[in-house]
């Protein structure tokens, strides 16, 4: 591997890409900190959870577990259900993480929706090491998340302005990533499959249970349409390969 510059350069290059996540994570992190603090846990606990767990919906759900008599089996089951979509994320990163050595474990640990999505719209500058760049994105995102949850737990009720709706930054981020990949690819079947299957499953299964059926539909459609999709993909591989 060629040496392409150190961590400082990688972090500087990665930071601008993470600003949308900074906005979003600070505020949904604050919301988590507030909720957890209301259960009687101070900011050190909020930080501990955000360091050890690092999952948005997973931690929101977990707040409900801190009651007498909770079953650990139920904890495991519910957390798997809320996070099952992440099982599929690694499939796209098997090769990119392959040579990351010690960092690989952290890259897998920190694979949130937002970090995963950022990996697919960021253009890595030529003078920056790709592995360090991806590591920088992952670590910066988690720092925002930890900071948000700490602020929420310390001073969540003291936020000086009405921040209602600021969590839309996350929605906007995914919309932007969606548009970006739409404009840079010729083959729109995968994107439409995700959008369509999500919408249909949401209508059928409701807001709390639609992710697993959606992922199953997506897999079935993508696998059964492989002959149609793959030739189109080949045409753009050359552009994606670097």
């Amino acid at each position, binding site marked *: 591997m060629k040496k392409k510059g150190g961590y400082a350069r990688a972090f500087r290059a990665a930071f601008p890409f993470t600003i949308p996540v900074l906005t979003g994570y600070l505020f949904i992190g604050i919301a988590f900190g507030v909720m957890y603090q209301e259960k009687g846990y101070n900011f050190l606990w909020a930080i501990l959870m955000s360091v050890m767990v690092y999952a948005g919906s997973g931690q929101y759900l977990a707040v409900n577990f801190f009651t007498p008599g909770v079953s650990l089996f139920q904890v495991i089951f519910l957390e798997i259900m809320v996070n099952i979509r*992440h099982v599929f994320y690694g499939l796209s990163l098997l090769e990119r993480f392959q040579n990351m050595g010690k960092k690989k474990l952290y890259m897998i640990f920190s694979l949130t929706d937002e970090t995963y999505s950022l990996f697919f719209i960021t253009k890595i500058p030529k003078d920056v090491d790709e592995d360090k760049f991806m590591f920088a994105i992952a670590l910066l995102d988690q720092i925002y998340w930890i900071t948000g949850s700490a602020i929420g737990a310390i001073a969540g009720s003291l936020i000086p302005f009405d921040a209602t709706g600021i969590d839309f930054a996350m*929605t906007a981020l995914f919309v932007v990533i969606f548009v970006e990949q739409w404009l840079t690819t010729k083959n729109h079947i995968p994107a439409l499959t995700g959008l369509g299957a999500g919408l249909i499953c949401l209508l059928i299964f409701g807001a709390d249970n639609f992710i697993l059926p959606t992922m199953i539909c*997506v897999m079935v459609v993508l696998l059964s349409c492989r002959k149609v999709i793959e030739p189109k993909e080949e045409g753009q591989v050359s552009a994606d390969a670097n």
Partner: protein
Amino acid sequence: MPISPQMSFLIILVVSLTIFATRAIPFVIFHNGKEIPEVVKYLGKVLPAAVIGMLVIYCLKSVSVVTFPFGLPEFIAVAVVVALHVWKRNNLLSIGVGTVLYMFLIQVVF
């Protein structure tokens, strides 16, 4: 604290390991050195676009189109983000304007 610190820590640990497991499964199945089947490579290539489409829906899952304001703030804000992004291709601009617009819509207009 409703339960003991030890039990609280145990819960965090269990949640942590469970979440990590969901993220680690593909890497365990196709660990280093093992040939990645063509079909998995194919899925890895086409899944991100589908997952991002799903995540857009996921973010909007709690929007009700049958009760006031009928999802209008979300619809308007998403439309503006899309239009702005197609026009300027600037991530921060699209997300910033969209978010401020959305906050204005739900705090002031609706």
